[in-house]
């Protein structure tokens, strides 16, 4: 397995270096630079002022020059300094990563909590009204854009009913758990969790639908397998058959998908973060692009790509570990 890991990591590094290169090249093609953005609100700034600032910020260096030095620094763990906020880009990313990560986590938890039972039940009761209802939910799920669902949820729960905040982030729920337990203040958790509800539901709905469908077809597949039929014939109680044998095996192909989904969510649910003003990586990267903060663009794209690739790598390896067929075959 070790050579496989090394090979995969090698591929991943090439892809990431390639992404960094494309981003470097693109920043040179994009019209307007950070100085244009800064000067936009300041008509008093002359062309000479702008030229001086450009050279002080190092914007007059060639693209290859910048790319090579960037890659060199990145390998040493230095992702550069933001041209706008003037602090290390790594710091900016680390400040926002937890918000994105926790939103990803809760969305996935929510999606699976619903998807697993739906998937199992619809697989067992094929062609029953339950299955049809499941199909309807699944179709609705893949058909609803998260931004639309987000706006509709805000309309219902914030504007009409006034139950939940329309946007914003008031800190991590997970980080608040110890304090809530120690002080017995569970209302603290709710104060933070209410901000998570709408964004995670808007992201979870689509994931739930996709995963419910996947689990359903995987279950149907496994139930047909000899060993499940055999267990059933042997008189193992149906509940045990489903949970111990069928579901455990059905979940394996689903894990690959979940890995991809997690990678995608982490690399920025940009639209959801925009709808809910969520201070995550997605919004940071959009802001970096609009202000032409080149080092920050590089860093956010690089980090999200690394997260995506790493997630896939982990899933792949996990797959090899848990799938007995893979192990022996």
């Amino acid at each position: 397995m070790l050579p496989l890991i090394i090979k995969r990591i090698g591929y991943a590094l090439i892809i990431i270096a390639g992404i960094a290169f494309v981003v470097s090249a693109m920043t040179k093609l994009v019209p307007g630079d950070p100085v244009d953005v800064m000067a936009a609100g300041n008509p008093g700034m002359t062309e000479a002022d702008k030229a001086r600032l450009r050279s002080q910020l190092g914007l007059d260096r060639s693209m290859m020059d910048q790319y090579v030095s960037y890659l060199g620094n990145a390998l040493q763990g230095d992702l550069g300094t933001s041209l706008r906020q003037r602090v290390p880009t790594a710091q900016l990313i680390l400040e926002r990563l937890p918000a994105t990560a926790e939103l990803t986590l809760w969305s996935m938890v929510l999606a699976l909590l619903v998807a697993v039972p739906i998937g199992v039940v619809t697989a067992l009761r094929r062609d029953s009204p339950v299955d049809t209802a499941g199909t309807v939910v699944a179709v609705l799920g893949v058909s609803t854009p998260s931004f639309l669902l987000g706006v509709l949820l805000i309309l219902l729960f914030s504007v009409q009913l006034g139950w939940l905040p329309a946007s914003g982030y008031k800190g991590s729920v997970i980080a608040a758990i110890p304090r809530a337990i120690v002080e017995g203040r569970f209302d603290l958790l709710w104060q933070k969790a209410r901000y998570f509800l709408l964004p995670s539901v808007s992201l979870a709905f689509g994931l739930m639908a996709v995963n419910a469908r996947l689990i359903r077809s995987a279950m149907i597949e496994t139930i047909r397998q000899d060993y499940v039929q055999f267990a059933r014939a042997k008189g193992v109680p149906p509940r045990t058959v489903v949970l111990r044998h069928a579901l455990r095996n059905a979940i394996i192909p689903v894990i690959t998908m979940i890995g991809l989904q997690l990678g995608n969510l982490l690399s920025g649910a940009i639209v959801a973060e925009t709808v809910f003003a969520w201070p995550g990586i997605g919004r940071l990267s959009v802001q970096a692009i609009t202000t032409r903060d080149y080092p920050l663009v590089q860093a956010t794209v690089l980090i999200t790509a690394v997260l995506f690739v790493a997630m896939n790598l982990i899933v792949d390896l996990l797959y090899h570990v848990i799938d007995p067929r893979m192990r022996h075959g």
Partner: protein
Amino acid sequence: MSLDQINPQEFLELTYARARQSVLSRRAVLGGFAALAAAMVLPDRAAFAEGRGGTLRIGRDQEPDSLDPQKTLVAVSDQTNNWIYEPLARLDTDGNVVPGLAERWDVTDNNKTIVFHLRDGVTFHDGSPVDAEACAWTTQRIMDPATASPSAYLLGPFDKAEVIDRLTVAYQFKEPFVPLWIGLSSPAAAILPRKSIEALGDQFGRNPVGCGPFRFAGWAPDTGIKLVRFDDYKCGPVGAPDEVQFLYFPEDSTRIAALETGEIDVLATGQAVPVDAVRRLRQNGEIQLLSRARQGLRALVFNMSKPPFDDIRVRQAVSHAIDREKVLAFALDGNGQIAHGPLPTTIPGYSKAVETLDYAYDQAKAKALLAEAGQQPGLKLRMITSDMPPVRRTAEIVQTELRDIGIELEIQSLPVAEWASLSSKGEHHIFFMAYEYNDADILYAALHSQGSYNRSFHKDPTLDKLLEGQRVAFDPAGRQALLDDAQALIMRQAYWAPLFEPLNFAALSSAVQDAALRSDGDISVSTAWIES
């Protein structure tokens, strides 16, 4: 007579006159700017009645990029830095130059050097003393290429600062510089503590230390900034509230809901109160709504470097084709004022004569002018606008209006970077001009053939001469005469089609007292307080 020949007192008067003209705010196209501490006109400490103070929670639509005043050009950063830092001098509500860190100053060396005498006993929030040494170090830092300061340009031909004694420092310029106070009174030129900056490194912009009326107490990125009153403030009366919080809400609906539910007390600066929310807020008896004309203008700028706008009749036709009443009603829900010239009424130097040169709404005349110019219906034109909602909406109305006279207008509504870069290339036919400025000299930037913000690409030696003349005119009356001529010429030639002057709004809960809206769109934080 050149500037280095006149006597120092006369030179100072000239600089004061320029500062006064710039009244309160300064620059900033995409949001109001701040400069000054209107606020410094305060009752003194003894006058504070019991109960004053409180925590003022202010909701904003933007967040500062850096609170290192030498490393930012963003309006909202300056609007925050105003409370944390202290410059050598400030401008009061009337635009008078009043002492800040410096008690007094004199001009020497053929008007090229200003000698500042600092107040004694002033300390930074970190406890280190504010002295001539600190001033010299601060200016060295802003001029240092390694700082890459975007705001350094505000100091014009500044050369260096020299320490004369502990409390005396000489600011030397390469040549006499009339708009001197605009830079020197801004946070960009505020005096900084070497000790803290060297200790904090690049984290200084996140943990600012100054010697202004409020002390920085915390910044949770994406959430808010907390300031606490600095009781040892020596350069003016101390602030009224005990604590000020600037909270960041990028979403309009959430920000407004936060005010309505009492989560915050004030909405101010930038687009914190979007025009579309004004009607709703006005109906709320619990909320005070303040409004004030902004020193800004929205106009269509015709690209004259190529057809069809090289023909004055086409420019006039478009000017006649737009119903500005409709623009106001649709895009701004009535919250604005019709513009008649290239300057808004709020900028000193506005020429009332332009109102007689106005191109009234008359589509028949517009069509006739187009036909006269030999343009067929179906003429295709391209317009560049920024993607700010009110601007975008105005552009869509202009598009419909022009369609009625047979012009197909393609709109490119672009994010700021593309907007700035593409418009300077001159491939457009019409540029949607949106500026905020405080001085009539904006005409130089926007209409002189060498101006950095010239998007009409015309060459008019007569206009160039007028605009150069107003820059060096010594007496205000002479400058006004030149500005009158320039504005009349611009309108007669229809270089621009003025649309409207926007308004600034602030909304406050009824518990907030003594808050006034400044012309930069901020409220006077150091006078406002809240009943607890």
